[in-house]
């Protein structure tokens, strides 16, 4: 990781990002706006799983917010990649960054599993049976997991050695 970070930091693209002092705060701001898209979409879907907003079906809610979740993730990946290229030594060898990537992989896996399950077992998700512990726990866990990704992300700045 150190060697990769060293090499990346020497590339012309990285040098360019480092030279433009306004670019990193700008990328971080767009990154935060994309976090808003993802976290709010996740919250709306999770609240529906908890039974808030029953005027919309589970499928309608997913159709409304899942595309925004993925769009937000694309923006996060693009701005995140640019931030890594700009300051590779700040992120790649950073324990907070590595934890963030692991948590992110888990969160994406859960999102895909939810989409697949909703398609295959639509009835299960649409039923109004109250107190379905599994789905309630899953909804709260996914929300906390996405929050943990954000916390680990902010912590990169405080674990960075360069």
């Amino acid at each position: 990781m150190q060697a990769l970070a060293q090499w990346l930091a020497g590339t012309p693209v990285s040098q360019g990002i480092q030279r433009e002092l306004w670019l990193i705060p700008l990328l971080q701001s767009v990154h935060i706006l994309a976090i808003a898209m993802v976290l709010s979409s996740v919250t709306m879907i999770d609240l529906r799983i908890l039974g808030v907003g029953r005027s919309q079906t589970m499928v309608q809610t997913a159709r409304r917010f899942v595309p925004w979740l993925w769009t937000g993730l694309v923006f996060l990946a693009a701005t995140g990649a640019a931030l890594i290229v700009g300051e590779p030594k700040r992120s790649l060898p950073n324990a907070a960054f590595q934890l963030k990537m692991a948590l992110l992989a888990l969160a994406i896996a859960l999102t895909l599993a939810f989409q697949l399950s909703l398609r295959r077992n639509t009835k299960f998700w649409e039923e109004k049976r109250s107190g379905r512990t599994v789905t309630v726990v899953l909804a709260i866990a996914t929300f906390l997991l996405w929050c943990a990704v954000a916390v680990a992300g902010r912590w990169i700045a405080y674990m960075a050695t360069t």
Partner: protein
Amino acid sequence: MQPVTELLSRLEATPLAVFISESDWAFPAIEAAHVIALALVIGTIAIVDLRLLGVASAHRPYTELSRQVLPCTWVAFVVAAITGTLMFISHPVNYFENTAFRIKILLLLLAGVNMLVFQLVTSRDVAQWDRAARTPVAGKIAAMLSLVFWIAVVFFGRRIGFTMLPA
């Protein structure tokens, strides 16, 4: 300006402020909570703004959508305000003198005024367009202004961290 600075200095000397600025984890933890809260504030406001603009959720009655979404906005706003205040008191003099911080506060006030005008004036005849995908022009303008103000709040908020004098 003198009395303000003196008040801020006294605020900076309170035990809570000293703890936040000296602890290794307190400031990052508060800042992380602030990011999550503000993401929810802006994201949920955008859901309502996009409905007013007819971009998303256009088929849902405006009042039904806002009654479901805006309570989340307010809970998140309270968390963002508390965490923001805690960060502010850790270095109140530096924040107060920071231009990006001042612009951000001004933008927050503008967003608040825009919201008040919409609530008190524009949405009075909501019954007439509640179920319509097309909303009045005043509603569209309020939604555009809201998005612009909140996006600018994020940009200037992030700028604070890059322009603060070393404490």
